[in-house]
């Protein structure tokens, strides 16, 4: 497959270099449309995008930590803390919306900072460190609220995840969540692929010892990756809280979904390789899989089996492709 002398295989190899996740996504969308032609209506695909937005942002943030060679298991709890905390601070007070959003971003920053410092300075492996934060942060959310949601989110706070402009020319509907997704995705893409920081991150993930010897501030690069991941969790939390309202298990399971989505997009675990765009593709694919299984009317356990098999095959395929 590396025989580059002939023109035909070269075109083929360029085609092969396109991340296959987009192809998979296309096939899945085709299957959804075949099962449910209404999906091509704005209400169909815009609802899909609105639903996928939180996972997209979360997966794009997770890519930073994965690229640095670590894991961030604390994002699910951070989502829950964002929703529960915001509802308690807001308690239907529309005027407080903006400072509550800032406060939540601040809380996310602190969680990321703690994760990063524990990993980089205390030298606790990130799997354990973020497992600890996962348990602690969800405990804090429970203690703060007393175990049940205690407040209401304002309409202003919920707009990002819930509001849709109607009668928009050409596209018909435009969910606010889509704008957040495009904006957030662009910022994260730029940070990873358009700045020096992205290069340093790849270097650290590839070989931390070599990076340190080359003068890369390894600790700082790592800490920032965790902060980015936690901030993306806060944004995902704002979108999810907006979409569906307050609950105490809103973030449950999202840490594994985010890692799955990133891996589907070809991010290499244990560091060194990760692309934000592909992670977005992975998140959309995962959401498409869930939607498809929903339409097929398969019971929950079957969905779980399918998700597990897809996860393993995606990674196995990625390994094969890397070796090819």
């Amino acid at each position, binding site marked *: 497959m590396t025989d580059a002398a002939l023109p035909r295989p070269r075109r083929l190899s360029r085609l092969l270099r396109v991340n296959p996740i987009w192809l998979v996504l296309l096939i899945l969308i085709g299957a959804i449309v075949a099962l449910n032609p209404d999906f091509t209506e704005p209400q169909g695909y815009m609802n899909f995008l609105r639903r996928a937005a939180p996972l997209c942002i979360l997966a794009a943030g997770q890519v930073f930590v994965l690229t*640095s*060679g*670590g*894991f961030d298991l604390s994002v699910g709890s951070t989502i829950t803390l964002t929703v529960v905390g915001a509802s308690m601070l807001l308690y239907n007070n529309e005027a407080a919306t903006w400072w509550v959003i800032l406060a939540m971003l601040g809380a996310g920053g602190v969680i990321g900072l703690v994760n990063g410092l*524990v*990993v980089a300075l*205390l*030298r*606790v*492996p*990130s*799997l*354990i*460190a973020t*497992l*600890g*934060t*996962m*348990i*602690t*942060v*969800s*405990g*804090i959310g*429970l*203690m703060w609220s007393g*175990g049940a949601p205690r407040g209401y989110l304002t309409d202003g706070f919920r707009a990002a995840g819930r509001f849709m402009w109607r009668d928009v020319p050409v596209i018909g509907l435009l969910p606010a969540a889509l704008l957040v997704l495009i904006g957030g995705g662009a910022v994260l893409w730029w940070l990873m692929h358009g700045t020096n920081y992205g290069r340093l991150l790849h270097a650290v*993930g590839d070989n*931390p*010892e070599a990076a*340190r010897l080359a003068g890369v501030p*390894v600790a700082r690069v790592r800490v920032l990756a965790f902060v980015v991941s936690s901030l993306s969790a806060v944004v995902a939390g704002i979108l999810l809280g907006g979409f569906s309202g307050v609950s105490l298990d809103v973030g449950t399971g999202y840490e*594994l979904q985010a890692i799955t989505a990133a*891996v589907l997009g070809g991010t290499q*675990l*244990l*560091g060194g390789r990760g692309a934000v765009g592909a992670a977005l593709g992975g998140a959309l694919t995962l959401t498409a899989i869930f939607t498809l299984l929903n339409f097929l009317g398969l*019971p*929950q*356990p*079957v*969905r*779980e*089996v*399918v*998700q*597990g*098999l897809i*996860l*393993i095959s995606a*990674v*196995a395929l990625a*390994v094969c492709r890397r070796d090819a």
Partner: protein
Amino acid sequence: MTSLPSPRRRLRIGPGTILLAALAVYVIAILWSGNTQFLRPGNILGMLTRAVALGITAVGQTIVILCASIDLSVAALISASAVLASVVMGGSTTMIVPAILAVLLLGMVVGLVNGLVITRLRVNPLIATLGMAMVIQGILSAVVSNFAGEVPRSFRSFDSGTVLGLPVSLIFLGLVAAGASAILNWTRFGSNIYAVGGNIDAARLAGIRTDRVIIAAHLLCSLCASVTGLYLAARLGSGAPWIGRDGMYDLESIAVAVIGGTVLAGGRGGIWGTMAGVAIFAMIDSLFNVLGVDAFAKQVLRGGIIVAAVAAYAIGSRRLVA
């Protein structure tokens, strides 16, 4: 990344130190709260008995972590084994042996598949076993949705029986731990595990069949998890598809291994450290109950304790971790 002893190791904290510290805190807190009955041998035994399920699982988990792998499928496998055991037994004593064999077979199949996916398909162990957990849990929940089957009264003595005043389950845990420790310390397979975990490339160059070692480690780990399933079926009288997940045996078994000084990157640690970790968890739980700590505060403290214990080992170490 290699495990060369650092020249500047001034302050090394081992699992023994942490266990002693935990014991001191436990005794002081109990004396302070005036519940001295919790220091009676019977209560201490009761406290340790509560950790048997976690202990058996953690023995297996330690073995896979030592060879730089990990197993997130243990919780799902525990549920599946407990259900399989209680369904096959169906309340009849004659079916005990077939049920045990079926459960052990299930454990071996799962361990083998885990090991093969990791070594042959070269899937990251975290993903491979997470996927396996989803597959097992999905199939299990599709087939049963509640407690299914029943274990006969005689089988329940696995949990409730005593020998010379000691609970059978605790003796069993001791035997499992001693057996695993013997394998790790005194057999070639054991030293191969440490070699593979320490540096897989060097191990391969030294002529060790690394794939076989990893597969065998996963086989042992899954066997331990299925035995835990048998034990829980005996304790609960039946198996349900959620008992492994609700007990959080996947994450907790990793946590106690790491608290016990086993390094996630592989190659260093051991069974007795893990047993110390299990004892620490049991003491923490018992202490929280004695002091009446609110469930949510418990969670916050637990998270902090895990991180603090692991951080304690890193004092004086200069290795980079991810």
